[in-house]
């Protein structure tokens, strides 16, 4: 072994021990840092759970707190679900009320129709006005676009058209009792309706009415009313319409008959007055 070998060996040992010293120093520093971190954590746990508590005690407290909070949450959720059920029940009830409100208002409209029709029919003893009112009722309150009103003439024993709207000459021709659809309805004395769309289109194509209402006082035929078409916006006959037709069947008949009687009595009264006036005139002395 030479001097150089000895120097190299010295240098190696010196470097080895230096690195060992540094490595040991680093280990000691890390050890100190870890000890500090543990001490810090222990201090935090102690601050949250009470002085002197162990980590297992702190965990138990957290579990208890969690259980309490879950209990409160479940209670609130139960209340929310009950409120939701109550709200749905109220919504269903509101829908029922709304439907009933609509039904009641429709009934009110129906009553208004019947009141107005009855009031108007008996508001006059003039035959032409009664006929006009019948036509107004059927057009405005029922929604008929084409109609005709016939009155029974006891002398000719035919039904003669006294008013019409929108119908042609064929539908206004005098009706013989028992002949044709209108004549047969007049003979039977029962109202006739075509209520389905296809039936109404078929009737219109054939020039036949979709409604035929005999106007009667008891069993005495006064006239007949025919409806040939409804307005485009009218979706078909309703319950109110049938109620109005029933009202017209009786009240229009009475109003027409009364107005004819009144006209007859006025004529007779005028004749009697003229005769009395003649009797009052003293003959001139010769």
């Amino acid at each position: 072994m030479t001097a150089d070998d000895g120097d190299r060996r010295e240098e190696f040992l010196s470097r080895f021990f230096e690195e060992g010293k540094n490595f040991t120093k680093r280990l000691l520093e890390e050890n100190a840092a870890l000890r500090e971190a543990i001490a810090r954590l222990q201090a935090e746990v102690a601050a949250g759970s009470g002085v002197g508590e162990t980590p297992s005690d702190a965990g138990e407290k957290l579990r208890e707190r969690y259980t309490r909070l879950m209990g409160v949450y479940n209670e609130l959720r139960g209340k929310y679900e009950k409120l939701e059920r109550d709200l749905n029940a109220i919504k269903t009830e509101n829908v029922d009320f709304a439907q009933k409100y609509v039904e009641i208002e429709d009934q009110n409209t129906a009553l208004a129709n019947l009141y107005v029709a009855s009031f108007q029919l008996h508001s006059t003893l003039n035959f032409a006005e009664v006929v006009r009112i019948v036509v107004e009722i059927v057009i405005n309150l029922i929604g008929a676009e084409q109609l005709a009103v016939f009155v029974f003439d006891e002398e000719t024993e035919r039904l003669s058209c006294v008013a019409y709207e929108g119908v042609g000459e064929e539908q206004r021709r005098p009706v013989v009792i028992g002949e044709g659809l209108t004549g047969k309805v007049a003979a039977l004395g029962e109202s006739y309706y075509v209520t389905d769309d296809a039936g109404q289109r078929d009737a219109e194509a054939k020039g036949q009415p979709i409604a035929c209402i005999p106007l009667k006082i008891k069993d005495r035929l006064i006239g007949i009313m025919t409806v040939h078409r409804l307005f485009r916006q009218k979706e078909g006959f309703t319950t109110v319409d049938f109620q109005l037709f029933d009202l017209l069947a009786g009240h229009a008949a009475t109003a027409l008959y009364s107005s004819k009687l009144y006209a007859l009595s006025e004529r007779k009264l005028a004749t009697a007055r003229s005769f009395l006036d003649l009797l009052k005139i003293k003959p001139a002395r010769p």
Partner: protein
Amino acid sequence: MGSAKAKILLVDDTETILLFLKTILTGHRFEFATARNGVEAIAAARSERPDLILLDVIMPVMDGFEACRVIKGDPELKATPVIVVTTRSEAENMDRVRAAGADDVIFKPIRKLELLDKINRWLPRRD
């Protein structure tokens, strides 16, 4: 806090319809004025200053379309809502309604709820 009655001008040459409208609208805090033709309607609109006009179209002397044009052309009346009441729902009739300047339309036979809905939509707020 009370609510003032709204005044509605009912225009129709048919007594039946005037009576029907008054009957179904009674009890809803309205008061009524009536007119039987377009000329009377214009005069009533100027004298009564209604809050809303229900206007029939087929009338003698002056029809509803002409009356509506006059009312809507009057600076003092043009803000008054006009609801046309008609039996005809065809497109050409609707064109005439729009051309006359009407604000809304309702078809006969009239349903109360539909009429009330339209009236309340067009009436100004009543304090």
